[in-house]
């Protein structure tokens, strides 16, 4: 053995301490908090009461449902856009490949707060200008309506994430050996058939990865939500993370907020295990 025992711990301990104190310990304390009526200053044990109230809390259920709806819609759209972009930028006959890749990826660099403000400007001012010049009421007041407000966040998120997912698809597309495609083309398959029967099956693992990444990100979405709609109008676009934040730091119902946090954790875990099971089954 090259590394002695005490040396091993010297290498490992710093990381372990960080994980324990920043994640594991708060997580365990958090589980306890969720069974108390903590308001940040005082707390007493109240059993499962927080969870019972949560499942009758209209606003919580609504924000949870909104988050699920948001996740499904944006996962679909992001993957469609991501794949389409990946196919565009891997075409051999396109000399703008590189710059297009940069363009598509660019929104992913910017933080959620800035993105939210950019789109707030577009949905309020730019859309208003479009509405009045085209005389189309469709473009008015996007952020003051629950329905269009929801789509506003979806559009923002698709704009942010598609370039990222594109990169994943690109790396899998590049890994497909050129000669399989050429062989298929020689056998008489046209472009679309080659895409459908050769490329797409090879992209299955990329799809699983992208699915998981987008799902996890959309469940945790907060900053975009805050900067774009701040939950408005009347908390109708408030997603689960914002619900937890407001409950904990505006209402000071910290035990209650923590119970919602634990439910969020369970959702994310469930999604991850589904993904794991899915990719395991495919490997067999």
């Amino acid at each position, binding site marked *: 053995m090259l590394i002695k025992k005490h040396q091993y711990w010297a290498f490992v301990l710093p990381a372990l301490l960080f994980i324990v104190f920043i994640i594991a310990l708060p*997580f365990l304390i958090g589980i306890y908090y969720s069974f108390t009526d903590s308001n940040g200053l005082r707390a007493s044990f109240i059993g499962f009461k927080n969870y019972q109230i949560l499942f009758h809390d209209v606003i919580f259920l609504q924000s949870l449902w909104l988050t699920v709806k948001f996740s499904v819609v944006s996962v679909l759209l992001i993957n469609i856009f991501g794949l389409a972009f990946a196919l565009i930028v891997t075409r051999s006959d396109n000399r*703008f490949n590189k710059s297009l890749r940069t363009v598509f990826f660019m929104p992913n660099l910017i933080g959620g707060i800035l993105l939210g403000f950019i789109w707030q*400007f577009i949905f309020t001012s730019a859309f208003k200008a479009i509405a009045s010049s085209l005389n189309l009421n469709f473009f008015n007041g996007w952020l003051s309506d629950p329905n269009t407000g929801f789509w506003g966040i979806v559009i923002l998120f698709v704009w942010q994430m598609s370039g990222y997912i594109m990169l994943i698809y690109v790396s899998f597309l590049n890994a497909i050996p050129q000669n399989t495609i050429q062989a298929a083309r020689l056998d008489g398959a046209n472009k679309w058939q080659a895409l459908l029967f050769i490329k797409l099956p090879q992209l299955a693992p990329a799809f699983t990865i992208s699915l998981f990444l987008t799902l996890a990100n959309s469940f945790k979405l907060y900053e975009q939500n805050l900067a774009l709609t701040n939950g408005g109008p009347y908390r109708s676009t408030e997603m689960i993370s914002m619900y937890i934040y407001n409950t904990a730091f505006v209402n000071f119902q910290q035990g209650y907020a923590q119970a919602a946090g634990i439910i969020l954790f369970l959702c994310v875990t469930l999604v991850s295990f589904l993904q794991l099971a899915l990719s395991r089954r495919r490997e067999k």
Partner: protein
Amino acid sequence: MKKKKISKYLSIFVFSIIGLFWIYPFAIVLINSMKGKRGVFQNPLWFTKDFSLANFKTAFQALDFAHSFFNSLLVTVGSVLLITIISAAAAYAISRVKGPFSSIIYYICAGTMLIPFQSIMVPLLSLFGKVNFLNRTSLIIMNTGLSVSLSIILYYGAFQGVSKSLDEAAALDGAYPLKTFAYVIFPAVSPMTGTVIILNSMKIWNDYLLPSLVVNKNGMYTIPLKMYSFFGETNSEWQLALAGLVLSMIPIIVLFLLLQKQVMTSVTEGAIK
């Protein structure tokens, strides 16, 4: 043949339109940041006559930009430095010493990655609040704790790919493990170090939620924090808010354009591994 050529130009044309469309939100922000209030109101979609760069000066001062930039840089560099060193060391040890401890640590890392920040935010804040430790240093510490798990897993994969014969050769030369690690093994995985640095820098530089809870006070504002409060103060003076947005985006976009290829590789690698 002619038909093929036409379709080629057509597709290039279509793709360029899509690209322009995709980048238009950036353009619209830039355009309107160089106007007066009037122009934004008249036609937010394109340039108007009242071109001026005065907004940038106002926004620069209001954002206390040099200071906020410095705070962002300090927090990002500090956190990333700590994350890189700590996670590389841990990953090296668990990749070289196989045993129950190593696998437990690996699974701890994988497990903690499942925990969303929102599920630990309340207790984490109250823990640090109780000991009066909420400042830039504690922000760096929290960032580190929240990022080491993923970084360890990334590094673990990279160290697996480095042959153990390198370690052995170094040991024969009389080097201690620390020396072997620092001078032989760590340099051998520098592409992964690049990935770890880039992934974490992007995340920490752009973060708003955690800094808003930890360093939301005078003198410690990072760029996203300051931008958020500045936005609240601009009161429908869009041209100022947009100038602030442009300023806030410049650093990361410039850095990206310089390191484009590396950033894209790193991002892909971080997702796939």
